């Protein structure tokens, strides 16, 4: 994956900094809560959402089960429509293919449509090394590129920036990349969008080569689909002479009809719209080929593996390949909201990143090994996922892989001890009685280890005078009786903190 993410710290360390950044927290909270409520309304408009979701899940599972067949069909259709199909086993090969295609045009710059696949492979850096400048044209990607920053959200890569910060980046940095920001630029979103329009228009009009991804590829027709909002996608897909699309192999769908499912739930899940402003669909060079003068004269499709076939081999993990990158899971995730996207150490942040990145990259690095644990398993992601990826299930599955790696000896020993104790209820009962009997000696905080982590922000629980099972033995011996007092078979033995007055009898 991209060199930009090499040597990232483990998730908990990166997240710690984020939780202490008040401005970041405010930006993320505002944005995610805004879209969360809107999404719920957009989804609520369709009373057959569950049926669409089930159909989407099954279409994807069928596609993945016969992925070789559909990719070959796609290749044949794209080729017969005048396109050229390339296959890239990994990021390095994909980057090499794209760089050579650009070099063959004699151009030294490309315009880019926002694309997760090219983020994943670090294409911009690779092109820079080959002497080619890649201009990001999506507004949020532009903000990230101008700010020499990293994306922090799948849909809105600059979600960590508020309007004031964006204004400052435009004012300070636009001139270095081309047309400067207008004089007196305000932080009104409409003015910021206008500044981006002016800055990028000259690039669109002179560009000869564009690089895109695709949201969907239709095997039966060879059609590629790009879903967008701003029109930068249309500019890149329509104006240049050469179009190079880098697309993960899992983005194929079997039939044209399948779009009736995915185009209903992608925009609603993503931007909470009934439909995104612009969708472009093209099949090779079109019915008239290069001669009809509509769109590029050369089209290259680069099919990218880069870890996807490894993911496909994992019975539990392969469901992650259903992902359509809508980012609904990010917007509802309480961990993402507080940790921010950068803590995930890859272009794929949030819950989907926590299950996708460790499968694409493995769990060798510190950050990748920490990602499956970057979740409270609350399940909000699974609930909103339009293709029903059971993200908590995959997280736990990946935790098992990480726990089997070296470096977990102490944790494994503790877990083994716990299982032993739970397997020996007599010993458990004795331990509980001892703990209760010595409770006056227990501190409220502890300095080290898991207990130390607990007491950073919380007091340790006060242990009861006796465990439940001791009470039960006594209760069992009592004759069945009329209503009894609840829960206070002994008088309080420790002073109460000054809480609500009514709660004291």
């Amino acid at each position, binding site marked *: 994956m991209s060199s930009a993410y090499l040597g990232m710290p483990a998730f908990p360390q990166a997240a710690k900094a984020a939780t202490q950044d008040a401005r970041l927290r405010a930006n993320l909270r505002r944005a995610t809560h805004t879209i969360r409520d809107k999404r719920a309304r957009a989804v609520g408009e369709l009373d057959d959402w569950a049926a669409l979701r089930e159909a989407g899940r099954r279409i994807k599972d069928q596609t993945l089960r016969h992925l070789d067949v559909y990719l070959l069909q796609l290749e044949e259709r794209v080729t017969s429509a005048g396109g050229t199909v390339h296959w890239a086993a990994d990021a390095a090969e994909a980057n090499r293919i794209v760089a050579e295609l650009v070099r063959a045009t004699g151009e030294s710059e490309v315009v880019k449509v926002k694309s997760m696949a090219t983020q994943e492979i670090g294409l911009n850096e690779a092109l820079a090394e080959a002497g080619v400048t890649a201009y990001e044209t999506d507004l949020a990607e532009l903000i990230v590129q101008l700010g020499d920053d990293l994306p922090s959200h799948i849909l809105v890569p600059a979600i960590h920036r508020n309007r004031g910060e964006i204004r400052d980046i435009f004012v300070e940095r636009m001139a270095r990349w081309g047309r400067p920001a207008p004089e007196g630029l305000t932080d009104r*979103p409409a003015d910021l969008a206008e500044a981006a329009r002016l800055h990028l228009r000259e690039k669109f009009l002179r560009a000869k080569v564009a690089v895109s991804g695709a949201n969907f590829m239709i095997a039966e027709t060879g059609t590629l689909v790009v879903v967008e909002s701003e029109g930068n996608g249309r500019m890149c897909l329509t104006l240049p002479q050469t179009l190079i699309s880098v697309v993960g192999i899992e983005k194929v769908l079997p039939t044209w009809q399948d779009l009736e499912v995915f185009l209903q739930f992608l925009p609603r899940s993503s931007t909470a719209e009934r439909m995104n*402003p612009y969708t472009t669909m093209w099949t090779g060079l079109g019915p008239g080929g290069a001669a009809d003068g509509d769109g590029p004269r050369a089209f290259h499709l680069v099919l990218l593996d880069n870890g996807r076939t490894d993911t496909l081999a994992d019975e539990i993990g392969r469901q992650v390949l259903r992902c359509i990158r809508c980012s609904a899971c990010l917007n509802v995730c309480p961990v993402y909201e507080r940790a921010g996207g950068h803590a995930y150490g890859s272009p794929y942040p949030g819950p989907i990143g926590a299950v996708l990145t460790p499968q694409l990259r493995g769990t060798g690095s510190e950050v990748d090994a920490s990602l499956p644990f970057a979740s409270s398993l609350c399940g909000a992601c699974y609930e909103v996922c339009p293709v029903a990826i059971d993200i908590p299930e995959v997280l736990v599955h990946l935790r098992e892989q990480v726990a089997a790696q070296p470096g977990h000896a102490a944790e494994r020993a503790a877990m083994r001890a716990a299982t032993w104790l739970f397997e020996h209820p007599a010993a458990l009962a004795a331990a509980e009685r001892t703990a209760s009997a010595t409770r006056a000696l227990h501190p409220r905080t502890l300095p080290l280890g898991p207990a130390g982590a607990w007491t950073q922000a919380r007091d340790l629980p006060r242990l009861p005078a006796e465990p439940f099972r001791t009470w039960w033995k006594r209760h069992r011996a009592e004759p069945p009786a009329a209503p009894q007092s609840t829960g206070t078979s002994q008088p309080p033995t420790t002073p109460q903190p000054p809480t609500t007055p009514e709660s004291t009898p």
Partner: protein
Amino acid sequence: MTSRDAILDRIRAALAAAPEPEPVVRDYRVAHVPVDDHAAVVDLLAGNLADYRAHVHRCTEPELPGLLARLLADHGSRSVAVPPGLPASWLAQADGVERVPDDAEAPLTAQRLDGVDSVVTGCRLAIAETGTLVLDAGPGQGRRVLTLVPDHHVCVVDTARQVVASLPQALPRLDPTRPLTWISGPSATSDIELDRVEGVHGPRTLDVVLLA
């Protein structure tokens, strides 16, 4: 071994023991509104277009040239791109507006179109539930660049023949081999604080004429 063969081999190996998944069941709705109430479907289209900041107008065939002339005038347009196959009568009353025709012999460049104020087109069809216009580069629509570079797009929908209720109704009527552009309101972005604002690279003003 080529990467193509390597990837295909890896896919087949990965799936060697995978069970056949459940078959696809399409028991979702064909449409979310009664499709035989055409007037209601057209009203829904109008409402959803307007909801995403398209300006919606309704007129009859004889009123169309006058309406188009007024829309161009209201926008202050001095030039209008004209796709091949656009009925000549549509722009008959647009006095004082330069016609800039696109044709196969002399295709307009993007640079030329950047200096054109408006474009008037028809469409292939419109989808009511999502407020979407679909253009397929056919007669009266032209190459994709025409509706992209000018800042003002006027799109005429023949409501009797071109309006469908839903996506499942729209897809079978479209030819996937043609270049397709789906338009749902003017250019917009949610990239600043996930709040939608209209107007970035595509036409910032979208007038839709629903022709009775």
